[in-house]
């Protein structure tokens, strides 16, 4: 079974090849290639996950047979393969769910480009997940940025280009800081491979040298990644980028791209700096505070929003706040909760985006709330899915959001000083979530007399409905039998250390 060790590398390479091949294909064919790629990668990731679970430890794949510290490495553990699996599944579902909008919104001749970019994005995501090399990480961060930017602007109107530019600028700021931090770290340690850096860092800290440069480099990397993942004060680019791009892009961006950066940060915390050292630096408290503020202000902005897509986008800001709050707790449990929330939020947010588009479609493409009145009856599938997503976001038991809330709170209790703020903000944020999501749910289930808009049924949109059902199942599965997933996350985090 050892050939499974090749799978991570193969999956990344497959993505790149698929991208290259697609660039010569027509739109339809590129789509099929992409779908095949995603399915293959899902299978590969699942195999890797099974393998690492069975082995109970992670493995390192050395690229080009150059041994450390010179060569480039890929490392796969339970957590990495779990992430990869999830990313693949969710991207697959998001693409299927948003396909009809894509065909509408993108020029016929350029459709293949979308799939090229998507392939590229997947490759960069997988690389971010698997890589063991900091500089490789940086390169794929940039690739990620570029392809994400392309995904935003594929639906060409002024808005999306502007959003793409803004996204680009913020991303470049972030990656610039990441790069600088990385260079400084390299300067301090002389290594680029994560495991080697970690040893050196431990040594440096033990000797008490270079504390200030080390902290500066940690800060630079963390802030860079925070900007890229739209933590609260750096979220200005997010609503436009998620709000106006085509729905699949929005779903993928919100649930995967920002999560890729967050996952990179997790890797930096565990595998580069070392959890204890990172925890003892003050940056963790800053992350905590920003996380809390994000939870509140993101939701407040969402409440004020009148456009359903932008509302969901703002909700992402709040959810990312949750994740950073989990980091900020500085405990193993907090980290577990954060990772779980990455999964549950990914599953929920793409569901919401895709359901929202179904609702706006039956409301004359109008995204204002007032037009959505009664949309839940015109498109029953989207209505139900949106309701499920909302309930999950609010944290109603049986849905995935409840488990993350549960894990977050349990983690919070373990930290004496941060317990009360975390718990109270969690409570307030739940209320705020309830306000804007439930407002929408009630709105879409408020019937109107003689609407001018047509209804949508299963017959019109079989694929769309199936995708929604799959999302709902995913969500409920996470909510009901979360224990295996949580165990895997724990195991994976343990492998990181």
């Amino acid at each position, binding site marked *: 079974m050892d050939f499974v060790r090749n799978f991570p590398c193969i999956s990344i390479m497959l993505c790149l090849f698929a991208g290259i091949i697609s660039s010569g294909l027509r739109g339809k064919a590129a789509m099929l290639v992409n779908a095949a790629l995603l399915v293959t990668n899902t299978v590969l990731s699942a195999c890797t996950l099974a393998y690492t679970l069975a082995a109970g430890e992670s493995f390192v794949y050395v690229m080009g047979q150059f041994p450390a510290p010179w060569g480039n490495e890929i490392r796969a553990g339970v957590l990495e393969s779990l992430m990869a699996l999830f990313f693949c599944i969710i991207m697959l579902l998001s693409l299927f769910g948003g396909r009809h909008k894509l065909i509408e919104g993108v020029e016929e001749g350029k459709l293949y480009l979308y799939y090229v970019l998507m392939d590229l994005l997947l490759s960069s995501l997988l690389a971010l997940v698997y890589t063991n090399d900091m500089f490789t990480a940086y390169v794929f961060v940039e690739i990620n940025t570029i392809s994400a930017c392309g995904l935003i602007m594929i639906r060409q109107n002024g808005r999306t280009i502007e959003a793409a530019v803004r996204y680009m*600028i913020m991303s470049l700021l972030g990656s610039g800081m990441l790069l600088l931090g990385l260079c400084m770290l390299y300067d301090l340690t002389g290594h680029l491979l994560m495991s080697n850096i970690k040893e050196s860092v431990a040594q440096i800290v033990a000797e008490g040298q270079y504390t200030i440069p080390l902290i500066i480099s940690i800060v630079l990397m963390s802030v860079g990644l925070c900007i890229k993942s739209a933590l609260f004060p750096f979220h200005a680019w997010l609503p436009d980028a998620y709000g*106006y791009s085509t729905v699949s892009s929005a779903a993928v961006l919100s649930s995967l791209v920002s999560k890729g950066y967050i996952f990179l940060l997790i890797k930096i915390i565990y595998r580069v700096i070392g959890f204890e050292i990172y925890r003892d630096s003050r940056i963790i408290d800053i992350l905590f505070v920003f996380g809390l503020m994000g939870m509140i202000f993101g939701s407040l902005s969402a409440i004020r929003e009148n456009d359903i897509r932008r509302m969901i986008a703002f909700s992402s800001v709040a959810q990312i706040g949750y994740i950073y709050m989990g980091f900020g707790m500085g405990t193993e449990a907090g980290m577990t909760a954060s990772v779980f929330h990455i999964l549950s939020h990914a599953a929920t947010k793409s569901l919401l985006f895709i359901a929202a588009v179904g609702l706006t479609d039956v409301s004359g493409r109008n995204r204002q709330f007032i037009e959505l009145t009664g949309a839940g009856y015109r498109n029953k599938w989207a209505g139900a899915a949106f309701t499920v997503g909302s309930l999950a976001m609010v944290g109603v038991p049986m849905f995935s959001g409840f488990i993350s809330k549960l894990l977050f709170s349990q983690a919070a209790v373990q930290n004496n000083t941060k317990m009360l703020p975390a718990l109270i903000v969690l409570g307030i944020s739940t209320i705020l979530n309830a306000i804007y999501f439930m407002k929408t749910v009630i709105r879409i289930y408020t019937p109107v007399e003689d609407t001018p808009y047509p209804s949508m049924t299963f017959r019109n949109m079989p694929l769309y409905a199936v995708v929604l059902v799959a999302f709902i199942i995913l969500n409920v599965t996470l909510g009901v039998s979360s224990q295996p997933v949580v165990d895997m996350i724990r195991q994976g985090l343990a492998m990181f250390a």
Partner: protein
Amino acid sequence: MGTNLFVNYGEAVAMILFGIGFGNLLLQPNLIKKIIGLNIMDTAIYLFLAEKGYIKGRVAPIVANGVQSMEAYINPIPSGLVLTGIVVSVSVSALMLALTIRLYRRYHTLDLDEISKQLRKEGL
């Protein structure tokens, strides 16, 4: 501290440049100037890297004249990184410029705030 700063003047300059570039990228309303800022920022980092990789009195790790001793050459990895970084930043700059052209054709301005204003007028 002062002496260190003087000795490592390369790094100091790199940091100042990074600051200039970062500020430009963040604060300039003009898109072209933003891109220039981006490039300054990236260049600053490459300078920083190069400075770190440079060892006084040695030459670039290109085997010339048959000298194979490790002592003769500087650390090759930073140089490699710089090269990679340049590739990345070139492509990013290209993308940004392409976007800028798009926007300019549409809105006849390079001012991002102005574009936002027009967008709002369009009601999109």
